[in-house]
């Protein structure tokens, strides 16, 4: 979804270019006009677009493109390279303090998602065996403290608060408590503020001076328009920003703000927020993002997700079963459940290559997660024996299973039919690819 239209637009432009044997300067200009419009429509700031297009054009007009045999591909390569360069070339990690605790301040406009991000970052750190302390220093928005407390409770993490007192004092006291309780990270949730609000900006500067944080992360809504540049510049001018967190990337925004903010602050985008739940949070991979823009898919993210979710040992067992055709409904159920852990199917689909180009067709299509629930219910209504040997499921058993799972006999029939078909296909596949199958078995769903 992200950058979907930009990527399909660029692809369209380059499809035309690809057919050409040799490019003239006019061709390059036409292509770059499309790039410009697409980037502007994606909310990339017009000044950033101007610079970007100028850089790409300069390189395109160099002899390497005009004389290249496949100039279209050359242009894609240059756009990709420049885009990656613009977004930062490697994954940026958090910088820990020499002596704990590491102090991280989160700042940003109202509604950009600071409080949610604090919780997500805390969860992220907790998973990596750290012990973060959450600090409620947003004393202005009604119920902001309560919001952080509720999130802290959900995550079973401590939240420090002193009510509506001076935020600088709150933060100071929090650091003291963290030292006492051996929390190795302190995450400070600050109040949302407009970058033109001098008084509140001063407050942040005071907080920075008092805490000397290792990280000050600017939280930016991915949907931000042209003003992203002004906002980021203002925060950058007052504070020692060390990174960006891009939120609400699970929307269908093209997310051009990512490029703008990165270009004007020079700070790396460190994390992205992808949903309302506290685990919808990932490191930002600039190179992958550039590939995604160009419609090359985000296979790496997908693979990593799969690896984190799929138990290595189980996968090997599964692979063996598939090869020896002992794959049962029980295994199928297990697989479904693992797939579900990887996140919403819609998101997974978008990461596959080729999907970017199909963006328009895919847009209306919603993957029906309810189908999954149905299948799960049906299998769970079967006895152990039935799961291992589906051939014993006669019509009376089918009726019982349907009643037990709250589905129709038809649904049960469908599932069994599909399962048989799948087993047959696997049989053929194993015959065909006996030698090569090994490497693939790791992701049976693909």
């Amino acid at each position, binding site marked *: *979804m992200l950058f979907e239209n930009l990527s399909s637009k660029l692809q369209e432009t380059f499809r035309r270019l690809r057919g050409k044997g040799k490019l003239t300067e006019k061709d390059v200009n036409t292509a770059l006009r499309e790039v410009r*419009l697409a980037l*502007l*429509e*994606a*909310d990339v*700031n*017009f000044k950033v677009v101007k610079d970007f297009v100028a850089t790409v054009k300069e390189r395109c007009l160099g002899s390497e493109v005009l004389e290249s045999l496949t100039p279209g591909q050359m242009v894609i390569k240059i756009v990709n390279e420049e885009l990656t360069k613009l977004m930062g070339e490697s994954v940026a990690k958090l910088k820990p303090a020499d002596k704990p605790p590491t102090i991280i301040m989160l700042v940003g*406009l*109202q*509604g*950009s*998602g600071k409080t949610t991000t604090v919780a997500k970052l805390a969860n992220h750190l907790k998973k990596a065996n750290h012990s973060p302390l959450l600090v409620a220093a947003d004393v*202005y*928005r*009604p*119920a*902001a403290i*309560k*919001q*952080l*407390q*509720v*999130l802290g409770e*959900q995550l079973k993490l401590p939240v420090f608060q002193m009510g509506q007192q001076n935020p600088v004092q709150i933060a100071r006291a929090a650091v003291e408590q963290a030292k006492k309780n051996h929390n190795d990270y302190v995450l400070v949730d600050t109040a949302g503020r*407009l*970058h*033109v609000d*001098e008084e509140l900006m001063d407050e942040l500067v005071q907080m920075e001076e008092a805490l000397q944080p290792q990280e000050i992360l600017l939280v930016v*809504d991915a*949907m*931000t*328009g*042209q*003003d*992203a540049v*002004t*906002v980021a510049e*203002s925060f950058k001018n007052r504070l020692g920003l060390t990174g960006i967190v891009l939120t*609400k990337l*699970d*929307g*269908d*925004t*093209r997310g*051009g*703000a990512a490029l703008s903010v990165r270009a004007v602050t020079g700070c790396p985008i460190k994390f992205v927020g992808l949903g*309302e739940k506290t685990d919808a949070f990932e490191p930002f991979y600039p190179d992958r993002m550039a590939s995604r823009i160009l419609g090359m898919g985000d296979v790496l993210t997908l693979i990593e997700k799969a690896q984190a979710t799929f138990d290595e040992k189980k996968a090997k067992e599964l692979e063996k079963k598939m090869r020896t055709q002992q794959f049962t409904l029980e295994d199928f159920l297990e697989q479904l459940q693992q797939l579900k852990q990887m996140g919403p199917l819609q998101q997974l689909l978008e990461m596959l290559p080729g999907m970017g180009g199909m963006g328009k067709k895919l847009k209306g299509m*919603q993957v029906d997660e309810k189908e999954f629930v149905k299948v799960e219910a049906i299998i769970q209504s079967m006895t152990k024996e039935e799961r291992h040997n589906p051939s014993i499921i006669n019509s009376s058993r089918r009726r019982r299973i349907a009643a037990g799972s709250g589905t129709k006999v038809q649904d049960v029939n469908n599932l069994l039919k599909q399962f048989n078909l799948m087993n047959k296909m696997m049989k053929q596949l194993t015959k065909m690819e006996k030698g090569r199958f090994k490497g693939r078995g790791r992701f049976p769903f693909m």
Partner: protein
Amino acid sequence: MSLFGRIKEGLKKTRNIIMNRMEELFTRQNFDEDFFAELEEILIAADVGIETTLELVEKLRDKIREEKLKAPEQVLAALKSLILDILGRDPVPLQLEHKPTVILVLGVNGVGKTTTIGKLAARFTAEGKKVLLAAGDTFRAAAIEQLEIWAQRSHSDIIKHQQGADPSAVIFDGVAAAAARGADVLLCDTAGRLHNKANLMAELKKVYRVVDKALPGAPHEVLLVLDATTGQNSLAQAKVFNEAAPLTGVVLTKLDGTAKGGIVIAVARQLKIPVKFVGVGEGIDDLQPFDPVAYVESIFTTKEQ
């Protein structure tokens, strides 16, 4: 302070690039290709969006030709007039004649729905109306508490369930209570939702249906809150929300920053949904009826006053 004054004051805080460039642009004497290219850029910088910008500039070219415009002031007036053709020239007030008037407030996460409701409630109670709030954001942590604080501030009553409750049920109770207590206005809060989440949009459709069932003809106003800082995505939001629950107006928030929220021009152009209010500050009184003429003026104002 008038809306015009407030917006101007907001703009004064950071002398906007757009302002300076406008000034420069309209002191030019000839209208060549560069002039139009610059103009395009200025509109784009205000988040008006490519399509609307190109259309506006095209129409402006025609107008200059047809009406033989020469002076920069004439061209500026022509451009303002073209934008006002889209936005409408007169403020569009809320329809408040029903008793109770049910107002549904929608939007994506973080645009300022709850704050807008608080400010609207304060405005209504100040007019002597009896106001009831329905805490329909049962999802986000502490959203109910946030609305409760606004209820106290605005001296209105609140209907709430637990966090995690069915929003339709809360709002149904709200409508019933509003009728029983003789409230003039019921303001319904909803959870922020990204418009591409089909299940959440389906939930919204249900809320809309339930309100209509509880009180035929309601909701009387369905307001979409848009953040002025948001770019082109606002248009997509307006389209999808409009399909789920037919919108009667837009509230444009956070206009006190440096963002212009020009996307409302595209929303008005494509969907014919008027802007009814603008948020220009954090205070309880910082929600003002939208005045199209003043808004367009503020976009093009070139001198500090």
